[in-house]
């Protein structure tokens, strides 16, 4: 089964890298949307459904925390799993993002295997 993915990151080269790593990991992506911040992501989600959102935290206009808050307040969007992909691997930050509704957290640097495993866990229903 192929999935529709939204990557939210203010860096075009990082979005490109994540797309490539998903491909290398064997993750089947049917359609990959990109947004440069949370506000742009919410705009895209008004017209397009995705199976999962990968988001950075530190972004202009609307950061990852604010994006999670907005998603959780939206009856239509709150069921989309969100995977945070961030350079911040501190336990405080991870717990904060999980409490805001993130379903997973991948700290940079990461390998294709790590990202692929987390995507499979979130979309395959395996909570292990």
């Amino acid at each position, binding site marked *: 089964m192929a999935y529709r993915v939204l990557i939210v990151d203010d860096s075009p080269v990082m979005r490109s890298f994540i797309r490539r790593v998903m491909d290398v990991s064997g993750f089947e992506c049917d359609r990959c949307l990109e947004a440069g911040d949370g506000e742009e992501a919410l705009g895209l989600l008004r017209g397009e459904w995705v199976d999962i959102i990968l988001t950075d935290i530190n972004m202009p206009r609307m950061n990852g925390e604010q994006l999670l808050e907005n998603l959780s307040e939206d009856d239509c969007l709150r069921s989309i799993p969100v995977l945070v992909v961030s350079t911040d691997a*501190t336990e405080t930050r991870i717990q904060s993002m999980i409490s805001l509704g993130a379903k997973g957290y991948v700290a940079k640097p990461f390998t294709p295997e790590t990202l692929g495993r987390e995507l499979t866990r979130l979309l395959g229903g395996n909570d292990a």
Partner: protein
Amino acid sequence: MPDIPDSAQVDALLASAAQDVLETMFFATICGRSSEWAPQDQVCVTVKLPFHGTPSGALQLTAPMAVIRSIAVAFLGAEDEDSVDDSQVRAVAGELANVVCGAALSRIESATTFALDAPEVTESTLNEARPASARVLFDLDCGPIAAELEFEEA
């Protein structure tokens, strides 16, 4: 306030973070560590990335343009150096500094949170290293690269 590790520990944590990032996400081959800044009179890319935490400070990443271009080719999965333009090279340099800084601070300030500013990427000729709280110099297969952390006084 959490204790910041001493300078030897910070050196080691910066080195392990930078090595992890270079090898895992930027597909660089590290040939060894160096003790002196080698690229005399070469045009270098310098990325300065201020951060705010406990303590605050800045990370500085420096490497010859050719080294950063080679890293950008690997990071972007490009066919060759001609297919990566200068703006992409600078963007990859900024991302490299961003990920090295985040990985290092996650190890050094693991009990707190931190915030990173946008990276400032410049080009210049550097003939000597500046003072830093911690510094690591790697010899990659494509040339040298330096990462430095400077903490603000409390």
